[in-house]
């Protein structure tokens, strides 16, 4: 019974894939193809491209990703807790308060360490 619910989703997935791939193929088949000097260079406002296009980027993006993972797992727990919250009552709320409290301490540490500061003077490119 449960799997029956997912048959329409499979059909929609097929439709979505067909639509997306069809659109890509359409422009690939219909569009003109003319070669030109520098046409396939990466766009840098008309100047000849300079340096490595996949240059090193700020470590903060990794830090944010890590903090995100921690909080995302928290949200997964919160979701399950929320669904049975009415049955758990005050006890459930206190339990969750302890759990969130620990996470908030971690969050305060991250905040204090400056992981969330994007406009620091030491970094020039964000």
């Amino acid at each position, binding site marked *: 019974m449960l799997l029956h619910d997912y048959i329409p989703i499979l059909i929609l997935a097929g439709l*979505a894939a067909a639509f997306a791939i069809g659109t890509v193929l359409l422009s690939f088949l219909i569009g003109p193809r003319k070669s030109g000097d520098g046409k396939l260079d990466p766009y840098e406002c008309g100047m000849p491209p300079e340096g490595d296009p996949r240059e090193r980027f700020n470590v903060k993006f990794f830090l944010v990703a890590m903090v995100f993972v921690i909080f995302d797992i928290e*949200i997964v727990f919160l979701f399950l807790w929320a669904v049975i919250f009415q049955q758990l009552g005050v006890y459930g709320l206190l339990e969750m308060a302890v759990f969130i409290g620990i996470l908030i301490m971690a969050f305060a540490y991250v905040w204090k360490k400056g992981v969330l500061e994007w406009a620091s003077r030491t970094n020039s490119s964000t």
Partner: protein
Amino acid sequence: MTELSLAIYAAVRIGVIFSAVMTVVAFLPWIERKLIGRFQQRFGPYRVGPHGILQPIADSIKLVFKEDIIPNNADRVLFVLAPTLALITAVMNLAVIPFGPTFELFGISFGAVQVADVNVGILYIFGFASLGVYSLFLAGWSSGNKYSLLGGLRSSAQMFSYELSLGLSVVTVLMAVGDFKLSEIVLSQEGGFWNWWIVSPKWFVIPGLLGFFLLLVSAFAETNRLPFDLPEAETELVAGYHTEYSSMKFAMFFMAEYINMIVASSIVTTLFLGGWHAPLPYEPFVLAPGWMWFAAKVFVLLFLFIWVRATLPRFRYDQLMNFGWKFMLPLALFNIFLAACCLLLADRFAL
């Protein structure tokens, strides 16, 4: 019912919903340009067809006949995969949205106006919304262009950050309803706007309003709309992650963005604005079919998307991240406790 008849009914529903949404997606850019024009005291598109209504068709025909460029530096497989993924994930999100109650035509019941009423509704939406991040990042990475890479990085960091407050804002509704199923969430808001979750958590109002605000702002950020359109900030990054894209691949990113706007509006409608319920449970209001109310609410929210775009300037990137982490996230956590206390109080005094 046999599986074959199930599949046929599903195919009919998918056909109707998919074509309806794609029609809206086709004309949404026209509506947006027209409205932005009015906001800026000009007419907007006016030449193609009456009041420029055929403009989207002309644009798409033009895009199909444009050259499909894959730059030298690009990772060819990922470069093609990125827009495909963007479009597929956007369309897949339409599957669980409850557009309306059971629909009857000529005495035949076609079931609810919803592709599939799965029991993990909300989680499904979050799953595919998260997959959408891949498409932006892959686009940025595979293009082999500095601007694209920065745009892709920025967009992934931005969408991570706002996904947190998005998830947390939904928790307030889940606490009140106790079910992931979107149709259940809509049914729980029956009987007048005072039962919608924007007002309710059993009439203490504030948690609902805050949750609505948090969800709306996060939805703006997740769909990369102004004032959060940093991934494609024209003044700094040319066009961000889709700088190198041309022809229909470029159009696919735009289609995905507009579908995501519709999905986001639908989610806000479903969770906080009563879904397909009429605002007042009395005669003239309840006569209109549910999907009309749903569409009306979605269009009001879409108008809001455009209105905000015309009103607010773009955030600076550090402002954006600060706002997400230092304002939205603590506020969302606080709101969950507020909602929990309100619900427990309401339960205690049996309001």
